C-alpha cells in the first residue's frame, strides 16, 4: 500500500461516479458563465481625459513648473530654503522634462515634508533617502545619463541616484517644481464606497538657482493640471513670484502612476464564485459519502495507515480542481476582456492586460489556486465532520458571508474580516495592488495575504481531519 497505489485508487473513485464527473464539468461551465455575467454587468465612468505615461499607463502629472529650455548637457542647482507642510508627499524640487505636455518623460529630485529626498523618472521612484528642507538639490544631464545629488551646505554633495533616459530629446525643459497631492477621504456604507478628495496646495521657496549649459535666457511658468480639476476649486492660487533670484512656487496635484483600482482581470475571474458553489460540495462529499455508506471501512481495511488515504484524497481532489480551475480561469480571462473593453474598461485607464504580465498570470493562476485551496478545505472539513451538510455549510458560509458583510462595514473591520476568513482568498484573483477604494473587501488585502489566509484554513482543516481519522474508530 504505497501512496502511488492510493492515488490511483482515489482517482478511480472520483472518475467512476458519473454525477461527480458532471459536477466537475458544471463547475468549469458555471465559472466561465458567471465571469461573463459579472463582466457584462459593470461599466466605468473613470476620468477619460487622464494623462498617459511613456509606458502607456495612466498617470497623474499635475504640478507647477518654472522652467527654461536646455539643449544638450547641463545641470541645475537650487537651494530649497523652505517647504510648507501641505501634505506629507508634497514635493519641492528640480526636474528635467520632455516639454510641458502631461505624461511626457522626465527625471526629478525633490524633498517632501514627510522627510524624504525622492528621485523619480517616468512616474516611478528611482531612489528615496531621508532629508528635508532646507536642502540643496542638483540634477545633471550628460547625454541620456541623468544623475541627482543633495547637500545640506551646498559644498559637500551626496549622490541620490542615476538613470538613463533614452527617450529624453536633446532639447528639454529644466527647472523647479512644486506639487501637493489631494487628501483622500473614504467612506464605506451599505455596498458603496465613496471617495472624496480635498485638494491641497504646496508652497516652497527656491534660492540660489543656477542653470549650467546652453539654456534659454528666460524662465517660463506653467501649471500642469488635469482638465476639469480647476472646477473643483483650489485652496490657493498656483503660480510663481520672483524677487532677487529667489522664487516662491505654489502648486497643486501629484506626479506618479495613477492606475484606477478597478481590476479588469479580477472582474473577469469573478465566476469562481459560482464554481466554488459546486466544487466545495463535491470535495466534501468525496470524503463524507464514504462515511455515509460505511464504505470508509472498506477503504481503511484496504489501507490501514489512514493518513495516506486523506493525503491521496486531497491530492486527487486538489489536483483535479486545479486543472479544472485553471482551464476555466484561462477561458474566462480571454472571453471577458473584450466584453469589459466594450463596457468602458479600455485604454488608457485600463490598458489591455496580457498573460505575459507576471501580475496577470499570477491572478489567473491565483483563481485556480483559490478554487484548489477551497477544495482542500472541503476535503479537510469533510474528514472532520464525516457528514456532508455541516461541512458544506461551514465552508460556504465562511467564504460567502464575509464577502457581503465586508462590503457594508467600515474599512478596518472589512480588512480584518478578509484576513481571518477564507473569503480573503478572493484577493488571489486580483492583478492590481491592494486598495481601500473599492466596494469588494477582498481588494483591501494583497494576493499573498489572501493565499496565506486560505492556505492556513485548508492546512488546518486537513491536519485536524487527518488527526481525527487516525484516532477514530470507524
Amino acid at each position, binding site marked *: 500500500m504505497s501512496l502511488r497505489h492510493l492515488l490511483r485508487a482515489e482517482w478511480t473513485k472520483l472518475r*467512476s461516479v458519473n454525477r461527480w464527473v458532471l459536477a466537475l464539468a458544471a463547475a468549469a461551465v458555471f465559472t466561465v458563465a458567471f465571469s461573463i455575467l459579472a463582466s457584462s454587468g459593470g461599466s466605468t465612468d473613470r476620468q477619460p481625459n487622464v494623462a498617459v505615461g511613456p509606458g502607456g499607463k495612466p498617470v497623474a502629472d499635475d504640478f507647477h513648473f518654472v522652467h527654461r529650455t536646455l539643449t544638450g548637457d547641463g545641470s541645475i542647482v537650487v537651494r530649497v530654503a523652505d517647504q510648507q507642510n501641505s501634505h506629507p508627499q508634497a514635493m519641492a524640487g528640480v526636474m528635467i522634462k520632455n516639454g510641458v505636455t502631461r505624461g511626457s518623460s522626465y527625471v526629478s529630485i525633490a524633498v517632501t515634508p514627510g522627510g524624504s529626498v525622492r528621485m523619480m523618472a517616468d512616474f516611478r521612484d528611482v531612489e528615496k533617502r531621508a532629508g528635508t528642507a532646507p536642502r540643496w538639490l542638483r540634477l545633471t544631464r550628460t547625454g541620456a545619463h541623468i544623475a541627482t545629488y543633495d547637500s545640506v551646505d551646498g559644498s559637500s554633495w551626496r549622490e541620490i541616484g542615476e538613470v538613463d533616459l533614452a527617450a529624453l530629446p536633446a532639447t528639454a525643459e529644466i527647472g523647479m517644481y512644486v506639487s501637493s497631492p489631494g487628501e483622500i477621504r473614504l467612506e464605506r456604507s451599505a455596498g458603496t464606497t465613496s471617495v472624496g478628495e480635498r485638494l491641497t496646495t504646496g508652497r516652497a521657496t527656491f534660492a540660489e538657482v543656477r542653470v549650467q549649459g546652453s539654456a534659454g535666457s528666460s524662465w517660463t511658468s506653467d501649471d500642469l493640471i488635469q482638465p476639469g480639476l480647476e472646477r473643483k476649486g483650489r485652496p490657493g492660487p498656483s503660480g510663481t513670484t520672483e524677487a532677487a533670484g529667489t522664487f516662491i512656487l505654489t502648486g497643486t496635484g501629484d506626479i506618479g502612476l495613477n492606475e484606477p483600482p478597478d481590476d479588469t482581470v479580477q472582474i473577469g475571474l469573478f465566476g469562481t464564485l459560482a464554481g466554488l458553489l459546486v466544487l466545495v460540495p463535491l470535495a466534501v462529499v468525496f470524503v463524507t459519502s464514504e462515511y455515509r455508506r460505511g464504505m470508509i471501512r472498506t477503504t481503511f481495511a484496504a489501507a*490501514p495507515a489512514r493518513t495516506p488515504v486523506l493525503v491521496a484524497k486531497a491530492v486527487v481532489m486538489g489536483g483535479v480542481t486545479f486543472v479544472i480551475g485553471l482551464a476555466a480561469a484561462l477561458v474566462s480571462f480571454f472571453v471577458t476582456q473584450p466584453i469589459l473593453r466594450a463596457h468602458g474598461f479600455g485604454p488608457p485607464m485600463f490598458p489591455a492586460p496580457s498573460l505575459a504580465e507576471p501580475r496577470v498570470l499570477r491572478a489567473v493562476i491565483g483563481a485556480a489556486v483559490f478554487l484548489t485551496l477551497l477544495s482542500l478545505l472541503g476535503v479537510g472539513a469533510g474528514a472532520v465532520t464525516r457528514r456532508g451538510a455541516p461541512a458544506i455549510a461551514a465552508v460556504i458560509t465562511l467564504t460567502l458571508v464575509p464577502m457581503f458583510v465586508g462590503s457594508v462595514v467600515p474599512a478596518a473591520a472589512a480588512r480584518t474580516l478578509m484576513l481571518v476568513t477564507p473569503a480573503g482568498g478572493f484577493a488571489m484573483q486580483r492583478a492590481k495592488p491592494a486598495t481601500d477604494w473599492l466596494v469588494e473587501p477582498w481588494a483591501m488585502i494583497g494576493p499573498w495575504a489572501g493565499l496565506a489566509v486560505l492556505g492556513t484554513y485548508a492546512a488546518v482543516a486537513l491536519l485536524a481531519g487527518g488527526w481525527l481519522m487516525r484516532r477514530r*474508530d470507524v
Partner: protein
Amino acid sequence: MSTSIEVRDLRKRYGTTTAVDGLSFTVAPGEVTGFVGPNGAGKSTTMRVILGLDAPDTGHAHVGGRPYRAMRRPLAVVGALLDAGAVHPGRRAKDHLLWLAQSNGIPARRVGEVLEEVGLASVARRRAGGFSLGMRQRLGIAAALLGDPPVLMFDEPVNGLDPEGIVWIRGLLRGLAAEGRAVLVSSHLMGELEGTADHLVVVGRGRLLVDTTVGDLLAAASGGRVEVRTTRRTEAMTVLANAGGTVALTDTDALTVTELAAEDVAAALTAAGVPFSQLSPHRATLEEAYMELTRESVEFGAMEVLP
C-alpha cells in the same frame, strides 16, 4: 497458506457499553469457523478490531502474528465482507473492485476473475445502486476474494441471499477452507452454519461461551436420549421405568427415554411384548444446542448481578 487469526483477551467498550469483554479464540487455517451469538454479542465489533477499524481497549487481535494496521498490502492477507451496503450506489461493480485492487497493487485482471467467481460477470458494468441485497452480498464477497488472501472473514454473509445463493455460499466457504484458508463466518442463527462450520466460537454479551468442534457440541447436546413411538404408552412407560430409565411423555404416542441405551430400550420393550413403531437415538440440531447454550448464558448473566 497457514495464516490464522488470533484474538487474545480482547476488550472493547463504547461509552458505558462493553461490547467485547475478555474474548480469546483462534481461527485455524483449513477450517470454517462459525462465529455465533445473538445480535449485540460483540461479533461485528470483534471483526472490526481484527481489521484494525476499531482500536481495542486491551488485548489484541493478530492475523498471521501481526496487527492488521502493520500490513502494507492487507487485502492479500485478509479478505473481509462486513457490510454489503457499503458501496457507492453510483459506481459500477467493476469500478468498485478496481479501486480496491489498485489500492493494494493487485493486478486489474483479478477484478474480472472474482466477478466471474461470484457470478456477477454479466452485471459488471451496472451501477451498484441497482443491485439487490443478494447481488451486493456477492459483490462484497468478490471484494474479499480480490487479493486471494489466506484468511477470510464474512459477517452474516447469508443475509439476503435466496436459497440458491445460500447453497452457493456454503459451497464457496467449504471450498475456501479446503484450499487451506482460515475462514471466519459470523451468524446469529446457528442453523445457518449447520453442515458448513467445522469449528464454533459461540459468544454472548461479549464473552466466550463455547469454543469447540461442531461434532463435540452436537454429541454433548444430544445427551443420549432415545425417542420411542408406541400406541401403548402406559405399558411402555412402566416397562422402561422398571428397566432403570427415566421416561417423559412428549406426545400422545411418543416417549423420550434417558439413562438407557437404545438397544436396552429395544430389549426391554420386546421382552415385555410392548409393540413400538419407531425407536431412535435423538440427534440434537445445532440450533437446539445453541439455544441451550445461550439460555444458560442469559441466566448466568442475570445471576451475576445478584449479591
